[in-house]
């Protein structure tokens, strides 16, 4: 029983990582209706920027805020320079663009900061949380940050003009344009926000998995799984999906013989496929009806 509880707690702790990442995945999906394969690398790159600033003596929260600003600007810039010219290109072209971005960011980070692992400081410390050795104050802080972020996004999309405009631009680009929304800039804004959320995810994840150019590789797959499970159109679903994936992965690894050793990673992939087949909109996503 103790092992069970421990694995669930550890699963929640790992799940917070996936939830954070899934939130960024859903954000960009909302803006451009596609999965951005370079999302993880963008987050990693932002985290390196923060790390570099901290190395230069900038206090943590200063570096945190600056990184958000730079990441936002960077996200907008990537959209303007790379993806706006491709706006009307077929989806495969976009996928190629994402993969190119992935490779470029990964290599540039490797070249600049090399591939050795680095410690990334946590603003929350790493003491046991409420006496539990399995969840540290950092992981509790990460869960809190994820929830705050979720709430902020909810209010942004429900109650602000610009949030509503972004949703309109993504859902009904044609109608949105007719009512005077600059849809092209809304997409850029979506990129900027996704990039900034990715930066937060990266800075929360790095203290757990250590900072290095490939730190998001595995995380992104689980983040995708979480987003798909929760529903790609639902930030709330993405967060719940993250925790579920974390717990499910640990329990399957512990109690299903054979899975523990060889098959832990495929669990995430199996989950993606299962959800897509059984319930394509995920647990919390709304179904999209398109007019023919």
């Amino acid at each position, binding site marked *: 029983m103790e092992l069970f509880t421990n*694995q669930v707690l550890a*699963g929640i702790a790992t799940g917070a990582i996936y939830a954070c990442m899934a939130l960024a995945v859903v954000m960009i999906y909302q803006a451009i209706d596609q999965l951005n394969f370079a999302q993880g690398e963008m987050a990693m790159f932002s985290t390196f920027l923060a790390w570099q600033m901290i190395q230069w003596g900038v206090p943590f929260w200063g570096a945190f805020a600056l990184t958000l600003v730079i990441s936002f600007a960077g996200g907008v810039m990537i959209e303007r320079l790379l993806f706006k010219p491709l706006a009307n290109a077929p989806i495969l072209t976009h996928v190629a663009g994402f993969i190119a971005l992935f490779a470029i960011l990964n*290599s540039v980070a490797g070249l600049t900061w090399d591939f050795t692992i680095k410690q990334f400081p946590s603003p929350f410390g790493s003491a046991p949380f409420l006496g539990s050795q399995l969840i540290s104050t950092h992981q509790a802080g990460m869960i809190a940050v994820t929830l705050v972020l979720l709430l902020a996004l909810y209010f942004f999309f429900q109650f602000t003009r610009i949030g509503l405009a972004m949703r309109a631009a993504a859902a009904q680009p044609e109608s949105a344009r007719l009512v005077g929304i600059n849809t092209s800039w809304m997409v850029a804004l979506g990129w900027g926000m996704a990039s900034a959320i990715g930066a937060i995810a990266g800075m929360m*994840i790095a203290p757990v*998995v*250590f900072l290095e150019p490939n*730190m998001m*590789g595995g995380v992104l797959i689980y983040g995708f799984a979480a987003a798909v499970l929760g529903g790609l159109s639902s930030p709330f679903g993405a967060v719940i999906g993250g925790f579920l994936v974390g717990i499910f992965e640990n329990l399957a690894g512990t109690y299903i013989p054979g899975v523990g*050793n060889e098959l832990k990673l495929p669990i995430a992939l199996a989950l993606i496929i299962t959800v897509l087949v059984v319930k394509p909109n995920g647990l919390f996503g709304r179904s999209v009806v398109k007019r023919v």
Partner: protein
Amino acid sequence: MPRCLLRLPFAALLAATIALGGVSPSAAQKAYDPGASDTTIKIGNLMPYSGPASAYAIVGRIEQAYFRMVNDQGGINGRRIEFISYDDAYSPAKAVEQTRRLVERDEVLLVFSAMGTPSNAAIQKYLDAKKVPQLFAATGATRFGDPANFPWTMGWQPPYQTEGRVYAKYIMATKPDAKIAVLYQNDDLGKDLLKGLRDGLGAKAAMIVAEDSYEIGEPTIDSHVLRLKASGADVFISITTPKFAAQAIRTAARIEWRPLYVQTLVSASIGAVISVAGFDNAQGLVSAAYNKDAADPQWRDDPGMQRFHAFLDAYAPDVNRTDNSAVYGYGAAQCLVEVLRRAGDNLTRANIMKQAAALQGYAPDTLLPGITVDTSASDFHPIERLRMMRFSGDRWELFGEVIGGELDK
């Protein structure tokens, strides 16, 4: 006498190699294979200068610098070394392509110190078919010391199986009632080391009460460590690469699991792993070593390490000398130079292999006292001894005797 060496003004640097003696055939016996001539010896190499494993590329830079020093000092028996080192990005497919380029276009005499198990495994058959030496492959996988099936391939560092045997001997001697839990990376590294451990324990292999493997794609390995702790083991062997090693050290400390913690050699680097995991979390860890640690003050007056530091000052001043890869590259390059020197004017590929397989008691500057390079026609594992070390304060402290982990011939 090696007549060319007498002219060298830096005899001090090569003193060790000269002292060990060698045969210098007379000019009449000159024999060359592609890549060797009266003036040059062409050596090929693969390194992951880009990609995920590029931290290891320091080995290639150091080797390059070492050969530059040898050339500045007059070369080997009067011949300059031309070191052609290509990037394979740690990708087996690229490794094959670059090796073909080295052998067929650049016509190198041999391929030296290619980095990593995947790349070496990918080029092994090709080089064997072409009868080109794959010398001192930079990997501990045991399959690179198999003269019966691959007479053109030889590794350098202690094979992972040897390391496993050394830990088995150490545990049986100090904790005969141990219950051992093993976390291993699911690849050649993990499986080889685990096999060595089991073979070393022999009839007492039941001491291993729990085994868990992980894939390098997993974001964290907390769950594995929890499971192993639940097994009730009092010895934990972590066969892990740097990122996972640091995670395991930190997680074990956080959940207050304090077994006899064995961290395998690949991730014993203070700079790359221990300092990242936190010195507090790593107190009492044990591991094994065969190289001298460049940051360890006990080697301050060691002539070999003084030569090493002098070399770095002059030829690679910007390299982080606490990085284990620097010591590794120096030792391997020095060992190759020794082989080439002994080959004299008979620079055929067959003779290179013959000389490489006849090293006895050879000690590069960087090996720990009591550990030497020993090969024979049936033993293609140059280094098969290690010494245990324990982490204390901010550095590793060697303890106990040198432990042999020779694999069955």
